[in-house]
C-alpha cells in the first residue's frame, strides 16, 4: 500500500536492459541496475509522500507506457529555427537530420563512454530520476569550454504520433566550464491526441564565473505527461537562471533542484504555469544554499482556468555555512474559474543566522476594480481579462531577456486566455 506499482516500467527494464545504450558497458549497467533496484523499491511516487501530496501519478501508472524502440518515421511539423544551433530529439532519440550541433555538443548515445563520472554525478534518490537512469535512451551532452560564449542553442523535444502510449526518458548532461556562458532554449512539443510520457532529466554543472540561462517552454500535447527533473550545481561566482513555462500536457511535474556550492553563486528561478480545463501543473523547487554570500530569487505565477489544478512547492534550505544568504521567493496564483484548485507550499529551512530570507504567496481572482477601469476605457471584458492575465505574468516573464527566448515565450503564451475562455 505504500508504493505505487512501478507501472510496468520495472518489467520493461528487465526485458530491455541489455539492449539499452551501454547495456553491456559495466559502469552504465551498474548505474542502471542500481537505479532499477531503487525504483523497484519505491515505485512511482504516491500522494502519501510529503513531496507528492498534491500530485497524483496514478494515471501514469495506469497508462502502462512502453518505450519507443525505434525512431519514428514521420515527424511532426518543426517550429521555425530561431538559434544558429539546434538539437532535435524525437521520442527521446536524437534526430541527426533535423539538428545542427556546435562543436561542444555531442549526444549521449553517440559517445556514452565520455559520460563516465559525469552521468549520474548529480542524481539523487528520486524515483523519477531513477526511472530515467534505468531507461534513458539518449540525450544532449553539452560541454562548453572555459571562457566560451556559446550564444543561444535550441533544444527541441518532439513527441510523434505513434498510435500507442509511449514513454521516453532523455538524459541531458550540460556542463559550462569557468567563465563560459550560454542561453539554452528548450521547447517540448507533442500532438494533442497522443498519450505519452516525456521524462527528461537534466544534470547541469555551472563552473565559477559561468552563466547558464535555461529557458524551458513546455507545450506538450494535452493528453501527454511530462515529469521533468532539473538537477543543477553552481560553483562560486557562477549563475544559473531557469525560467520554465508550463503551458501544455495533461499533467506536468517540473522539479528543479539547484545547489549553490561556492561563494557568490547566484540563481534566478522563475516560471509561469498556465493550466486550462483538464490540466494539472506542478512546479516544485528546491534551492540549497550550501555556501556563503549567495543570492537566489524566485518568482512563480500560476493561472488556472476551467477544471484545472495548479501546484507550487518551493523549499529554500540555508545550511549553517551559508552565512549572508539573500533568498527571496514569491509565488502567486490567479484563479479564473470556479472549478480550479491551487495548492501552494513555500518552505524555509534555515540553519544560518546572518541571513535575509523571505517568501510570499498570494492566491486570488482578477481584481474587479482593475477590470472595471479597463472596461470604462472601452476595452471589451475578454480583452481586459487577457490584458490582466498577461500583466499578472509579467513579473515572472520579464527575467527572460534573450530575444530568441522572448519570441518563443510570446508565441507560447499569446492568446492563451482567449483560447481557454472560448
Amino acid at each position, binding site marked *: 500500500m505504500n508504493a505505487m506499482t512501478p507501472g510496468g516500467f520495472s518489467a520493461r527494464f528487465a526485458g530491455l536492459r541489455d539492449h539499452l545504450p551501454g547495456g553491456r558497458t559495466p559502469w552504465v549497467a551498474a548505474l542502471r541496475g542500481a537505479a532499477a533496484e531503487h525504483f523497484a523499491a519505491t515505485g512511482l511516487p504516491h500522494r502519501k509522500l510529503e513531496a507528492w501530496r498534491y500530485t497524483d501519478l496514478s494515471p501514469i501508472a495506469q497508462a502502462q507506457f512502453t518505450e519507443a524502440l525505434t525512431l519514428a518515421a514521420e515527424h511532426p511539423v518543426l517550429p521555425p529555427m530561431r538559434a544558429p544551433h539546434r538539437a532535435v530529439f524525437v521520442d527521446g532519440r536524437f534526430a541527426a537530420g533535423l539538428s545542427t550541433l556546435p562543436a561542444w555538443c555531442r549526444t549521449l548515445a553517440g559517445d556514452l563512454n565520455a559520460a563516465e563520472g559525469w552521468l549520474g554525478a548529480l542524481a539523487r534518490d528520486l524515483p523519477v530520476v531513477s526511472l530515467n537512469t534505468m531507461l534513458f535512451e539518449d540525450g544532449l551532452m553539452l560541454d562548453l569550454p572555459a571562457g566560451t560564449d556559446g550564444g543561444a542553442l535550441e533544444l527541441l523535444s518532439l513527441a510523434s504520433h505513434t498510435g500507442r502510449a509511449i514513454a521516453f526518458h532523455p538524459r541531458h548532461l550540460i556542463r559550462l566550464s569557468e567563465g563560459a556562458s550560454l542561453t539554452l532554449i528548450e521547447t517540448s512539443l507533442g500532438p494533442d491526441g497522443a498519450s505519452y510520457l516525456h521524462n527528461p532529466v537534466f544534470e547541469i554543472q555551472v563552473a565559477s564565473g559561468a552563466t547558464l540561462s535555461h529557458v524551458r517552454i513546455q507545450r506538450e500535447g494535452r493528453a501527454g505527461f511530462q515529469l521533468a527533473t532539473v538537477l543543477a550545481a553552481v560553483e562560486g561566482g557562477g549563475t544559473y537562471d531557469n525560467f520554465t513555462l508550463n503551458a501544455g500536457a495533461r499533467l506536468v511535474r517540473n522539479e528543479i533542484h539547484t545547489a549553490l556550492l561556492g561563494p557568490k553563486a547566484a540563481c534566478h528561478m522563475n516560471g509561469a504555469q498556465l493550466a486550462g480545463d483538464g490540466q494539472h501543473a506542478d512546479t516544485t523547487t528546491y534551492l540549497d544554499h550550501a555556501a556563503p554570500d549567495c543570492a537566489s530569487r524566485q518568482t512563480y505565477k500560476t493561472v488556472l482556468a476551467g477544471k484545472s489544478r495548479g501546484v507550487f512547492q518551493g523549499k529554500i534550505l540555508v545550511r*549553517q555555512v551559508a552565512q549572508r544568504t539573500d533568498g527571496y521567493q514569491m509565488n502567486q496564483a490567479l484563479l*479564473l474559474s*470556479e472549478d480550479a484548485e491551487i495548492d501552494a507550499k513555500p518552505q524555509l529551512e*534555515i540553519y544560518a543566522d546572518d*541571513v535575509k530570507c523571505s517568501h510570499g504567496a498570494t492566491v486570488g481572482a482578477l481584481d474587479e476594480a482593475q477590470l472595471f477601469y479597463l472596461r470604462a476605457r472601452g476595452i471589451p471584458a475578454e480583452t481586459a481579462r487577457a490584458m490582466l492575465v498577461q500583466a499578472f505574468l509579467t513579473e515572472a516573464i520579464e527575467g527572460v531577456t534573450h530575444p530568441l527566448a522572448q519570441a518563443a515565450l510570446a508565441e507560447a503564451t499569446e492568446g492563451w486566455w482567449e483560447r481557454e475562455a472560448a
Partner: protein
Amino acid sequence: MPAVAETLETVQAASDGGYKWGFETDIAMEFAPKGLNEDIVRFISAKKNEPEWLLEWRLKAYRLWLTMEEPDWAAVNYPKIDYQDAYYYAAPTTKAAPKSLDEVDPELLRTYEKLGIPVREQERLQGIAVDMVFDSVSVATTFKERLHKEGIIFCSISEAVQEHPELVKQYLGSVVPPGDNYFACLNSAVFTDGSFVYIPKGVRCPMELSTYFRINAKSTGQFERTLIVADAGSHVSYLEGCTAPMRDENQMHAAVVELVLMDDATIKYSTVQNWYPGDAEGKGGIYNFVTKRAACRGARSKVSWTQVETGSAITWKYPSCMLLGDDSVGEFYSVAITNNHQQADTGTKMWHVGKNTKSTIVSKGISAGRGQNTYRGLVKISPKATGARNFTQCDSLLIGDQCGAHTVPYIENRCVSAKVEHEATTSRIAEDQLFYCRSRGLSQEEAVGLIVNGFCREVLKELPMEFAVEAQKLLAISLEGSVG
C-alpha cells in the same frame, strides 16, 4: 561584529538558572500503578466515579490508540517514548473533595501562590477566576459562586461529568474526535482532569477565566482535557498557564482543548506555556503534544488563539479553527521561543467552510542556542467558502548560528473568490539596532530583550493586560543566560 560575538558568548554561557518555577512541592500523593493498559483506563475512570458511557468512550479510544502510529512528520527529534514507563494518574491524597478554598491543603495553595497565581478570592487584582490543576486533578476553582449567578459553569471537567453530564456527553470529542491523532487519542483514553466552561446565551463573562496547570510528581504524564462551550451571543476570555519542576527526565503533557462557538459567540483563548524546557545540555523537560481546536459553528462567531510558548523540551501544537458558520472569524497569534536544545513545531490550521469567513495568522519564532523552531500551518478553503480571506505573517528571528528557523505553510484553495496572502521572513537581530540601544546605555541583555519584545509586539498586544506583562518578563527570562 563585536556586538554579535558578545551575544553569542552570552548564549554559550547559557545555564538553566533562568527557570524560576522548577521547585517541587512535597505533598502526599496517590498514584495509579505504572504503565498503560485497559486496567489503568478503568482505574482512572473509577477514581473519578465516571458513568459507564464515559468508561466505554475511553476504552474505545484506548483500543483505537493501540492501532495508531506516533506521527513523525513534525520537525522534532526525540528518543522513542516508552509509554509503559510513566504514571497516568497522580493526585494529592485528600479525604474528600474540598468544598471551599479553606479546605484545600495549604501546601497546595502555597505552591500556586509561589507561582504567582491569585488563589485567594479576596486578593484578586483583576478579577480572574482560576481552576488549579495539580498533576492529574483539579484542586480548586475560585469564583464559582459569583459565576454561577450569571449562569456560567466553570469547574473541573471531572466535576462537570458529575454535575452536567448532558453537556459533557453532547460536546466531548465533538471537535477533536478520539481518532483525530495519536496524542489526542491517548488523551481521550487517559485524560484525568481539566477545565469545563459553559457560557449561556447572551452572557458576557464578567471576569477572565483561567486554568493553571502544574506538573509536580515524578514520572507522570499530564493529560488534561478542556472543553469550552460558548452559546449564542456569549463572550469569554480564557487564560491558561503551566509550569513544572526541573528534572532530568522527560515528562509528557498531552492535552486536548475543544472550543465550541454558536452564533455571534466570541472566545479569546490565551496561553502562556512555560513548562520546564530542560537544561542547557538538553536533559529533561516536558514533551508538550497538544491538540487544540475550535469549531466556529455559528454565524459571525469569532475565536482568537494567542499563545506564548517559551517552555517545553518539545512543543507539538497547532491550535486550529474550523470556520463553519458564515462570516465567522479565526485568529492565531503566536510567539514561540526555543533556546538551548528546545524544539518547537507549532502553527495552526484555518479551515474555511462558511461564506465570507476570515482568518489571520501572525507567528513570531525566535531561535537561540541550539533551538529548532518550525512554523507549520494550513490554510484550506473549500469551494463553498465564497469571499473567504486569509492573511498570514510568519517572522523568524535567529540568535546565534547553531539554531534553526523553519517555515512550512500549506495553502489549499478551491474557491475562486477567496483571497489568501502569506508572507514570511527570516532574519537576525540587526547589529545596528543592538549598537543603537547599547550606545544609549542599555546592557547587551537589555537591548536583546527590548528588540525581541518589539519583534513580538503584534502578538503580545493580543494578550489580556495582566498576562502581557507576565509574558514580556517571560520572554526576557527565557532568553536570559542565553541572550538577554
